[in-house]
């Protein structure tokens, strides 16, 4: 049964999404570009917005959700206030980011893809950010730190979390 969609109330943000779709002549192949815009604006893919996008592009909601869940970059859940990205590319793996992930689990009880209960911190595992020469690499709210030992890396994270609170 098709989902009954309400036009999202926040018009300004919805307008920006409509603009993306119009730029691609509202064709079905605008879908992925549109999802990028939705995620840029809302931080995640809100299901109400997704239904509205499906309506607008005249494609089945199932296909929209199918695409949204296929790609790693898209998230259907809101992120926390801060995001820690741990790169797990080969060079970062060889240089000890696997230990950093284990440490995050042990000390902060977070696995990749999870957000802390107080909604403060999201942990994200990146496939490879392409800064392999600086391995091991982490990104604290988008700021890249690289070429540190395991101990130094965990110190950077603790310090950042302390300052961010």
């Amino acid at each position, binding site marked *: 049964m098709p989902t009954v969609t309400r036009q999202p109330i926040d018009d300004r943000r919805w307008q920006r999404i409509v603009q993306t779709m119009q730029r691609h002549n509202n064709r079905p192949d605008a879908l992925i570009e549109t999802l990028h815009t939705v995620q840029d604006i809302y931080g995640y893919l809100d299901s109400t917005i997704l239904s509205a996008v499906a309506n607008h592009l005249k494609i089945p909601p199932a296909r929209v959700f199918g695409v949204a869940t296929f*790609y790693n970059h898209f998230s259907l859940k809101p992120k926390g206030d801060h995001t820690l990205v741990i790169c797990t590319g080969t060079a970062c793996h060889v240089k000890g980011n696997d230990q950093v992930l284990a440490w995050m689990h042990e000390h902060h009880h977070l696995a990749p893809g999870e957000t802390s209960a107080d909604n403060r911190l999201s942990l994200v595992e990146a*496939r490879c950010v392409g*800064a392999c*020469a*600086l391995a091991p690499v982490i990104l604290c709210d988008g700021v890249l730190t690289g070429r540190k030992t395991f101990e130094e890396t965990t110190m950077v994270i603790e310090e950042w979390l302390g300052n961010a609170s």
Partner: protein
Amino acid sequence: MHREKIDRIITEHRQFLDQFNHHVFVCSGLGCPRNDEIRRALERAVQTQHLQDAVLIRKVGCMGLCSAGPLVLIQPQELMYQGVQPEDAEEIIASLGKSPIQRLLLPADLAFFTRQHKNVLRLSGRIDPESLPDYLVAGGYQALLKTLATLQPPDILRSIQDSGLRGRGGAGYPTGLKWATVAKAQGSPKYLICNADEGDPGAFMDRSLLESTPHAILEGMIMAAYAVGASQGFIYIRAEYPLAVQRLKRVIRDAEQNNLLGHSICGSNLNFHIQIRLGAGAFVCGEETALIRSIEGKRGLPRPRPPYPAEKGLWGCPTLINNVETYANIPPLITHGPEWCANLGTDKSRGTKVFALTGRVRHTGLIEVPMGMRLREIVDDIGGGLTEGHTLKAVQTGGPSGGCIPAALLDTPVSYESLNELGSIMGSGGMIVIDETSSMVDIVTYFMAFCRDESCGKCTPCRVGTAQIHNLLIKFQNHRATMADLEMLEWLCDLLKNTSLCGLGQSAPNPVLSALRFFRREFLDCIATEQAHEEVKP
């Protein structure tokens, strides 16, 4: 008419650049952190020392030696400073024209720089990536102008074929043959795609090229469009590379405004437009048929070939799809002629190749070498050997689709054929140096976890096989494996290689197979039975 406009831009920009006694280049790629701050600090220092008329601070692309970054290059003296911090700015500006600052200076004869042969990277770190005048002054778009004015599409196709250039995305398919197929294909419109979905963990060649010389990629694409008769192009790029995306958007706009893209390019009858499409994090979208579906706005599922995209690609139309580095090779190839490329490299692997050299090696970064160079030269000379106190175990090439080359075979020349013989691949050019601290079982488990997660799930061998192989590898990691598991592992790898639908599944067992070939002992050590020990005995 158009030629005159371009010549005018070149003359004016050259005059502008010549006003300054010193040019200070600041690397502004992702690999040099805080480069914005460094540039601002240098600009402030120029102000405070009242040298605005003598010193020009410029942002440039990647200089290659990321491990020594942030890098600053002083022209015309060719002094390179390493590990520069914003606090060094005053001192650097004050030292211009005097003796260099010894503590920051990189030796001019560093093998990392002298042993390379730069072709597609020749302008990287030498021009402002976003500046069209800079690219023009460096000789950019001359190959395109020459093409449009004096060459017919068949001439270009012949040049590409004569050069022996092969696709730099990994599989090494002859570029000339691919172009000729698209040029001949029936159907319209024809599309052109630049594959910038660099999903290999451990590779950053495409990112660096896109960030450093985006105009060169456009130029290669426009020439390809002319050769095959395409009117619409797409650059499919990872959303994880925001800086590259931002720079591409800028240079596409500049090219459009200067009639290098759009209708009747440079007064010729060529119409060509380029759109950017963002990937969304799916390794399988590096495979051409999956990438095409993703541009169509669908899940990136591959389909069986034939028909190949050259005949039925995007929306069922003939489509030329090449990697970033392949397009970047086109302008120099047309400028210097096919012989120039053909004379470099080995018999079947010609030209140069860009590699992302990383891992446990002293000098990490982006390098370009002629094909046929021995791995040992790359690791020991260019890479400066291993980090203190460590010994080389293997060099991993080709990412999750490649394999490991053990230290004993380090004299292997780097070419498509020689790497294939060793069960590895050139891949897009990731090269990771592994030392004795890493366990091969651990590394292949890591790669298999990656392939399991990235399998699109369309075909059973890949969907189920990668999961099964990964489970078996975990048994090895935990020292719970048996000889039967080893047999099963080899059997599954063989099955996956031969029955998977696309390149992801077909090549997923490569790391395991190459590890089993060269580091079998490590697997046998994980088997806790008498049987294993017996097999090891001579």
